[in-house]
């Protein structure tokens, strides 16, 4: 398996299209996964507007905003890496992927701070929950589920990026391999998911 071309393909162009298409379908599925959770959020928001507004004020908006900026920037570096890989610009690819990994790690670090601050403020549903309104617990249930599922996706994405970056570094994988673009697509989807979660979890209930 020396070149980028793999069985059962006969042309790299076709293979690249299949990698992109396959990834897109898979991302369609991923989008449905988060759509299910967001539906749960929307339904509960509609049933308990007061509790959700109350609870929405408790999330760490500064950290959430910072994380959004970090993730948007990581999408930039990942896009550069994917384009550079296709153009076979080795240094730019490696830099792009390295920066993406660093930004991803920064995102998770900020997320970790945020979670521990939430725990200190007793924002984990259950006995001793900080807010009296019962439905506020539902908001935070969804907050924990969505952010941790998203973080798991980040970890998955970082694993893939690290693996591909390592292979590119070792020259074990030709830069023309469609895998770089597929990984970038996945990374961008994880970014898009966060873009949607951000207003739901951090911006609700801020207005006077």
């Amino acid at each position, binding site marked *: 398996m020396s070149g980028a071309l793999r069985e*059962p393909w006969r042309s790299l162009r076709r293979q690249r299209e299949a990698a992109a298409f396959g990834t897109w379908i898979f991302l369609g599925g991923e989008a449905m*996964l988060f759509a299910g959770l967001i539906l749960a959020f929307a339904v509960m928001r509609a049933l308990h507007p007061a509790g959700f507004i109350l609870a929405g004020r408790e999330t760490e908006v500064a950290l959430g905003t910072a994380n959004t900026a970090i993730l948007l920037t990581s999408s930039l570096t990942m896009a550069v890496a994917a384009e550079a890989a296709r153009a076979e610009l080795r240094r730019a690819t490696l830099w792009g992927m390295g920066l993406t990994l660093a930004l991803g790690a920064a995102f998770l670090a900020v997320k970790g701070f945020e979670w521990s601050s939430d725990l200190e403020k007793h924002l984990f549903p259950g006995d001793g929950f900080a807010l009296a309104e019962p439905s506020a617990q*539902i908001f935070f249930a969804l907050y924990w589920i969505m952010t941790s599922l998203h973080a798991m996706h980040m970890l998955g994405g970082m694993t893939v990026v690290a693996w591909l970056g390592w292979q590119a570094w070792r020259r074990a994988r030709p830069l023309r391999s469609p895998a770089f673009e597929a990984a970038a697509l996945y990374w961008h989807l994880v970014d898009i998911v966060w873009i949607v979660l951000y207003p739901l979890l951090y911006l609700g209930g801020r207005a006077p």
Partner: protein
Amino acid sequence: MNHITPAIPAPDAIPHEEPSYLTAERGIGSWLLTTDHKRIALLYMAALTAFFFIGGAGAVAIRLELFTPKADVLTADGYNRMFTLHGTVMIWFFLVPSIPTTLGNFLIPLMVGARDLAFPRLNLLSWYLFIFAGAVLIYALVAGGVDTGWTFYTPFSTTFSNGYVLLAGLAIILAGFSSIATGVNFLATIHLLRAPGMGWFRLPLFAWAIYGTSLVMVLATPVLTAVLLLVIAERGFGLPVFDPSRGGDPLLFQHLFWFYSHPAVYIMILPSFGVISEIVTCFSRRNVFGYDFMVYAILWIAIAGFLVWGHHMFVSGQSIYASLAFSFLSFVIAVPSAIKVFNWTFTLYRGQITFEAPMLYAVGFIGLFTIGGLTGLFLASIPIDVHVSDTYYVVGHFHFIMVGGAVSAFYGGLSFWWPKITGRKYPMTWARFAAILMFFGFGFTFFPMFIMGYLGMPRRYQVYPEEFQVWHVMSSAGAVLLAGAYLLPMGYLAWSVFWGEKAEDDPWNATGLEWSTSSPPPRDNFRTPPEVDEGPYFYHPEGEGPGHDHGDPHRDQVRTP
């Protein structure tokens, strides 16, 4: 898998041919690490057989218990665990993967003229995921027991159930990943690996059916993952979303669950539509009647199948207006199924029909599926559904579709493509007998359920009023026949692998790319990459020219002078 290889004649018996996929490589490693779609299909077949036996054991326990109105064999919890085992294993580990992962895996690349699926290693990965998920589920069912039923309704599953619900949920999520990977693979293959000249309307209907199935798999399964994650979060981590005591909504669970689980019915039945189309056209020597309508019907079902889930919720407390919308859409989806039944029937018209075992399965399928489909009309009507929902009527209905339908088609497809898969022929008399036995055994087992369901026998009841006993006895007796009909083919098919007569490349004189290569096919499927310049079906009765109703595949019923 070494036991298969001795049965294959030594390659030097046919010196001009390269070895088949079965003999191309040897050793257990060559099977467990294979990326050959044909070998992976056989791996799936082995796994599915095991799961079929496990799920079947659950059915045996249930039918045994229901022989009398009292609790004689199982404890109350034991019974609940048995029907949960039967449901979860049969749905997620047999019916959903059955035809796509075995026949689909084996045939799709052959039918579109490709060397393999688009992502061969993903294909193998999805098998391992499936096996691992199955192991986790079996562990959960055996070690702790799960008593939620396959529907995992909240708040029972999140708060009240005693059992390994978390593990079972995890297993089903993993099986879902496997299902999604399989779907992605088929979609990419059918889109991008068709042989030169293989236009969309030259695809065999089986490929179309798998295409529709894959679409549903990829778009529906993630929602099941989401809802099971919510159940796991609530049960395992105390994160309430459905808990009524904190304002949660159990109906939200049902919406999300049925958004997957109703389309899942189409995951189970669409592939069998494809199988039946292939069989009926071959054995009646007549092109499929209304090919393009068949295609549109598949797509119609694949898309509209997502819009009817609320008919599972007519008595749940769902809004009556939503129920009306769902009832309407449910009636509408009856239409494409009716198109298919009529088209199969009219494919027979003016044919030259022979009744080999696959055809007997297919004819039986049409009959049973018609009953299953028509009984669905009762369930789409709200007033009747209110009466029969959660009764044996529903149990009868979905068994007609999924067992009378999907499982019959699975056995039919297996007997149709068996010579291609193994290169061996099986004893036809036995096979015909098994097909007929299956039809009658099935009828005896499941038809009484409609009657007792309408009489009011609720499902998931271990003990029941005596007035229902006569129907349960009938059903249990039929189940004995049915079990025989399921075991018989396993016997003679296994026999054929060792002692069966060697099959020709095209034993049924069928058309379609898969029959143009050798039986069993070589590792790379085709010795020369195929090119296609006509539709998939080219059948005609003996003594008639091939052109009489053949032509432009868009208009395969062209009137010729």
